[in-house]
């Protein structure tokens, strides 16, 4: 049986130390996210929403507190275990798309599968399926520089899905796109959420994007406001 809570964040703090000056990005965050939820993390710049997402997504570790993903306490994991969670449980979609410039769409999508030890042929077959799913079946051999922002973000979404993760995390996924393309990208993500029941967590400062989520998590001064 699957657990109700996929994320359980307990009293998480994050302090950055730059040139001897301490910055408190998170100050005791408590938060749970249920499996299958569609949540938007919102808040002004510097409120700690990106930091929270990075910690939830195992890209960063908290200075204090616990992050429990499906019963596993990630604060006690080493780099390799964290990498495995990022690869298998979480799919990231970033604001700047973050595709690898030298590789084609299909190679970019299949890369996380290759990290999982899957052969080139199998990985590319899966990548092709996903590329069809995001409506770019005809752009397989194109490099990121040959695609528009919206197309690159679709490729990034396909990449996030390649290892069939439980959670899709978007860090301002529409931040670099015009409003029409933003809507299209969010349609793709929402469609995924509806059809596959994947948990979706989006960091955004765009009201229109946040509006579409079923739950809004407001961050203010490093804390969850509501």
């Amino acid at each position, binding site marked *: 049986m699957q657990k109700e809570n996929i994320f359980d964040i307990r009293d998480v703090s994050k302090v950055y130390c730059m040139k001897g000056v301490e910055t408190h990005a998170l100050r005791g965050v408590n938060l749970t996210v249920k499996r299958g939820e569609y949540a938007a993390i919102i808040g002004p710049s510097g409120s700690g929403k990106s930091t929270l997402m*990075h910690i939830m997504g195992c*890209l*960063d570790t908290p200075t204090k507190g616990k992050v429990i993903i499906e019963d596993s306490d990630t604060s006690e994991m080493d*780099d*390799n275990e964290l*990498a*495995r969670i*990022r*690869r*298998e449980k979480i799919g*990231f979609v*970033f*604001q*700047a798309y*973050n*595709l*690898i*410039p*030298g*590789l084609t769409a299909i*190679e970019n999508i299949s*890369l*996380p599968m*290759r*990290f*999982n030890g899957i052969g*080139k042929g199998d990985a590319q077959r899966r990548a092709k399926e996903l590329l069809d799913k995001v409506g770019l079946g005809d752009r397989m051999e194109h490099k990121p520089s040959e695609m528009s922002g919206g197309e690159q973000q679709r490729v990034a979404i396909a*990449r996030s899905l390649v*290892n069939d993760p439980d959670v899709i995390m978007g860090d301002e996924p529409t931040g*670099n796109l015009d409003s029409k393309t933003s809507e299209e990208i969010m349609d793709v993500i929402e469609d995924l959420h509806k059809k596959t029941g994947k948990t979706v967590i989006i960091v955004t400062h765009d009201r229109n994007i946040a509006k579409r989520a079923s739950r809004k998590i407001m961050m203010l001064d490093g804390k969850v406001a509501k």
Partner: protein
Amino acid sequence: MFDIAVRELAGHRTRTILTALGIFIAITAIVSLGSISAGVNDLISSSTSSIGADTIFVMKHFDMSEMSGPPGSQSIEDMTAEQVAEISEISGVKRTVPIIVSQAGGFFEVDGLNIEDVDLFGGENLEFEEGMWPENDEKAAVLGKVVANSFDAAVGDTILLNKKEVEVAGIFEEGSGAYDLVIIIPYDAANDIYEADGGATQIILEPVDISMVDSIKETVEEEHEDLDAMTMEDALSMMEEMIGTLNIMTFGIGFVTSLVAAIGIIITMYTSVVERKRQIGIMKATGAYGRTILMQILEEGIVISLVSSVLAVGVSFFFVDLINNVLMGGTKLAMITPELAVGAVLYGVLLTILASLYPARMAVKVDPIKAIRGN
């Protein structure tokens, strides 16, 4: 993921080619020098193995420090006829073989000795391609195959030694080792051609018994202060020293060139990691293990070094061919043994792996958050 490594290298063609060039030059230098080392070793061992262990060589004392003028302008002085006679009288000497040594055609050695004494060098086992040994009273020569090619001479032709005509009596078969480069003439002919007055450049002594080698050597050096006597043991250790020096030179040059190549690899790999920080960050963010990143950088190094080392060995075969056939006129001075070829490729790959370790470790430490944030 060698395919990704190849894609990455192909994406930065200039940088890849320059790195490969560094490795290529180092490996070519090592293999070419190593091949000369191996070849000389082989030549020396093949030419000394046919000489008896009890043989004593006598020659005029030769001091390198007393040399003046460019190398080669000095000729080794001859011993006089009296000295030859006195040495042959020393007790325990069974046979005295005076040899007049000279040069012809640049680097061919002319040995003048009585033909019945050629057995001292295993001469009786040499195969002739054409002709045979001359009589002692003939003004005739036997040529190594390389010499014959160089003089374009066949049996019955006449060649000039010291501007005097000598008939070709025989030609050794090709591949007779050091004998490929030698001209052998009877002692009397050499005495006449080089105006030696019954003297000799070198005397080879055969003792009655091997136990007398040391006492003969001592007597020669006591009675003739201007002469050096060398036993086979001395000669072997001298040659070993020569080969040792050659090996040290090879090693030294190889070490320096590979050091330069290694620094080149470190710089290019380092630049490549710095340039790709974001990309490495993306790979880590999407779940690549640290060791996956490490392997990715090392694989790029392995691909470059494998290709350039194999190419270098290939080109070295061409160089060796050039040295042997053009420079040496057919003698196998240089040779690439399978061990040398395989060893050089392995060395090239190992060197690159070692040089890539630091940049690769740096890549592993890239912080994915910092890397992916930048636009």
